């Protein structure tokens, strides 16, 4: 099992690409800031979202039962899966019951987590990912490297070559308009011939038994409304109590994700179309275990906006694949050790604990504090030298670049001397001696470091 730092080294071989990746994500982060500043009561919205999710986790069983009852009374079939294997089997069973061999799927991190595609493919089912970014990585036989921007690690030239090979496109030097249009034609054909459409669920409403799916491309709806059968897969934590709560979450989600005021399509499914069927698969797969961990429970409030990735200095410079987990970045580094601590033991160290993730999180998860808590647990259970080596590598690799020193105002020697101590044991103000942690509204990492430098 390769550690985060080893994998990050691989990503860092192409420095131009890393710089581009870094800037592109920071740009998305800035768009998020602008969008947030245009909303009156933004901080109150975040408080509400956080409070609603906290209530959900404390009453989850009742909400799930209420949701099931209401969904069923609207003609939706509800299935429950304790783990990935059960989830995959349920989906496959629905497919066989409908004699389906062709499936179109819109974005769903849960089905990634369950490795549904390889499972279905081994049974002879064709599964086509229909989000453009997901289709790109599917053709490249890669997983997504970001939960909202699945192909952010790919250059347009790479996509050009990929499309030439798989879709028979002409060389275009990576013209995004041309490539997107070719993908549209290719996917049209897949939509028109699919037997079953699979989607994720952004929010499931206990009060109504309905659910909402958000996309910009319209790919979820194209799949669903052209097929007879719609299978929607959701983790147990996707529940919200009342429909009016969508007002809170839809205002936060797209602004936090890409800086848009809302996604292009926010589709509300309550009843199947006449003659069609909707199935919902509700999945645990380790979530109730995470619920039991008081310190990490709130990580289940995540609405998968990706803001913590876009803002994270380590993520931006190490890439999604360096985390080797379904959900990369800061939130993934809290969720993954909960699934498999040994495999993911290096992830909580892939952070500077700068707190920028917690500052942008629309549901106010204390991400960096949870990372710190995982470190304490992992440090206790694993050999020290390994941990120290890991930290040194991360520090050296991600922060150890001449241009960054200037920004960071620190020396490699300083880092090597103090980094292990800081990264394992520090509270937030460890960069200073006993000063208060600088208060950074929607914390800008560079600015924070700049201030640090100025303040000595």
């Amino acid at each position: 099992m390769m550690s985060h730092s080893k994998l990050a080294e691989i990503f860092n071989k192409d420095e131009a690409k890393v710089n581009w990746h870094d800037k592109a994500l920071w740009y998305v982060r800035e768009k998020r800031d602008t969008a947030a500043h245009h909303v009156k009561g933004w901080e109150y919205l975040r408080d509400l979202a956080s409070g609603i999710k906290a209530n959900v986790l404390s009453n989850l069983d009742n909400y799930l039962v209420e949701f099931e009852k209401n969904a069923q009374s609207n003609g939706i079939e509800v299935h429950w899966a304790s783990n990935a294997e059960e989830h995959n089997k349920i989906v496959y069973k629905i497919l066989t019951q409908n004699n389906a061999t062709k499936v179109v799927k819109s974005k769903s991190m849960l089905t990634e987590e369950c490795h549904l595609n390889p499972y279905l493919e081994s049974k002879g089912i064709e599964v086509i990912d229909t989000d453009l970014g997901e289709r790109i990585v599917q053709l490249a036989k890669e997983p997504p490297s970001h939960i909202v921007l699945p192909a952010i690690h790919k250059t347009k030239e790479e996509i050009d070559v990929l499309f030439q090979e798989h879709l028979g496109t002409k060389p275009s030097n990576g013209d995004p308009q041309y490539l997107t249009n070719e993908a549209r034609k290719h996917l049209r054909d897949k939509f028109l011939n699919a037997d079953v459409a699979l989607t994720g669920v952004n929010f499931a409403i206990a009060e109504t038994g309905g659910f909402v799916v958000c996309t910009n491309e319209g790919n979820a709806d194209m799949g669903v409304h052209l097929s007879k059968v719609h299978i929607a897969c959701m983790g147990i934590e996707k529940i919200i109590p009342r429909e009016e709560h969508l007002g809170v979450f839809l205002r936060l989600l797209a602004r936090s994700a890409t800086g848009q005021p809302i996604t292009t399509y926010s589709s509300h499914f309550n009843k199947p179309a006449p003659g069609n069927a909707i199935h919902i698969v509700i999945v645990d797969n380790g979530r109730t275990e995470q619920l039991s961990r008081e310190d990490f429970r709130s990580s289940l409030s995540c609405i998968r906006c990706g803001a913590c990735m876009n803002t994270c200095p380590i993520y931006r410079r190490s890439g999604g694949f360096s985390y080797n987990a379904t959900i990369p970045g800061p939130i993934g580094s809290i969720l993954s050790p909960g699934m498999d601590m040994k495999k993911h033991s290096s992830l909580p160290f892939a952070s500077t604990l700068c707190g920028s993730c917690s500052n942008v999180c629309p549901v106010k998860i204390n991400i960096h504090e949870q990372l710190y808590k995982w470190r304490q647990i992992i440090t206790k259970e694993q050999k020290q030298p390994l941990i120290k080596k890991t930290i040194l590598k991360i520090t050296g690799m991600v922060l150890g670049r001449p241009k960054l020193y200037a920004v960071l105002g620190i020396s490699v020697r300083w880092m090597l001397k103090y980094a292990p101590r800081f990264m394992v044991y520090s509270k937030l103000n460890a960069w200073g001696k006993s000063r208060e942690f600088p208060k950074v509204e929607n914390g800008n990492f560079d600015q924070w470091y700049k201030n640090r430098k100025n303040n000595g």
Partner: protein
Amino acid sequence: MGKSSILKSIKENKPTLISLPEIDVNSFEETINLVETFKKNVESVGGNIKELGQIQDLDLEIKNRYPNAKRIFSQISESVLGNVQISEQTKPKDLENLDLAILKGVFGVAENGAIWISDEQFSIRILPFITNDLVLILQKKDLCQHMHHAYKMIANRTRTFGLFISGPSKTADIEQCLVIGAQGAMSLTIFLI
């Protein structure tokens, strides 16, 4: 056994009940020009928007904007451009080559340029997605400020299928370059009456 074991595990592991916050909508109220804000946001999400003095101008405007549209579905009695019929026998795939759909929007949301439409406006769910271009007609009086109002406005609807639609389909999955026209409609034009 999925359901019972999941529910049991939640019961054992959940924290004590934390109360559900009430949404204080007053915190979000602003005095804004609804029409202007809506227009600005529609444009920012890649949509076209035009105010029409009178609905009689509608067909002329549509013809100007979509001169090549041949197969057109219209749900608006004021437009005579529709030449595609949708009946109970129509299959979603039959609309594969639809050039233009003209539908009524129920109401618009100023803060994000979104318009609510539901299967009451389009008898076949694939319609607003599969059509090459989409025109929505909206009454100026049917605008609300933000999503909290929006959910109040649809609270008593018959719940089947409906959506907020904000601009044309789009993607930025290739090097973050925004491309309008992904898998759904290639353009969205809103006529405000």
